[in-house]
């Protein structure tokens, strides 16, 4: 006889409450990052130089700006998922864990927001 409630059996999530969503999101963002990161690396390598004018001209193209914003957002998401697991794995006091996870989340939003805003400024030319 199982002691699980019928609702618990239907949801099938165990004590972690969030099933495989975190694991799956990590994989999906990983797949998306393969073309995005390679595009970014190859684009920079193919530029004639990395001086201000060259890089700015390249990034102000709508395609470059668009892909760069996508890169930043997916990179942030993937990185956030990964470092969250690192903190969950190694920080064992509840208060410190909560604090670090909050600092981590705020930092990612701040850094990604600044990066995306910078790219938009470059594309808009102001």
């Amino acid at each position, binding site marked *: 006889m199982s002691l699980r409630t019928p609702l618990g059996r239907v949801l099938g999530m165990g004590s972690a409450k969030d099933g495989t969503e975190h694991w799956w999101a990590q994989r999906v963002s990983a797949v998306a990052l393969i073309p995005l990161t390679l595009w970014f690396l190859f684009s920079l*390598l193919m530029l*004639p130089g990395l001086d201000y004018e060259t890089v700015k001209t390249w990034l102000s193209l709508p395609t470059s700006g668009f892909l760069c914003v996508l890169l930043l957002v997916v*990179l942030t998401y993937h990185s956030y998922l990964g470092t969250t697991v690192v903190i969950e794995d190694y920080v064992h006091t509840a208060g410190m864990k909560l604090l670090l996870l909050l600092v981590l989340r705020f930092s990612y939003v701040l*850094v990604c927001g600044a990066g995306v805003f910078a790219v938009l400024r470059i594309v808009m030319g102001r």
Partner: protein
Amino acid sequence: MPSPPVRARPTSPHLDIYRWQIGNTLSILHRLTGIALAMGLPALCYWLVSLAGGDESYAAAAKLFASPAGLVVLIGWTFAFLYHLLNGVRHLFWDAGYGFERTQRHASGWFVVVGSIVLTLCVWVLIRHTAS
């Protein structure tokens, strides 16, 4: 009657009883490169912000990245990225159910190690070539 000696039981995850080998080494390296790359994200955003800020702020950022310490960190991030990319694809193959045989695991592992070192060299030879 003497009580039996109390032996300290190993606590989970028993890391110190395992022999060091390629599987666990590359797994640990995957997490370490992931952490290193997470630290690279603010640097990437700083570079973009400096580019949006104009000629002078970009020059300041470029000077920082081109310093000896900056170059060491950039080369480190290049390796970390290429390793994390190749080993990540290796993980995706496992997730899809392929490559679990002992010989396959070892071969793909060494492919990742050699591949990421060679590609890091290629990238930086190309960068020096472009810069000169």
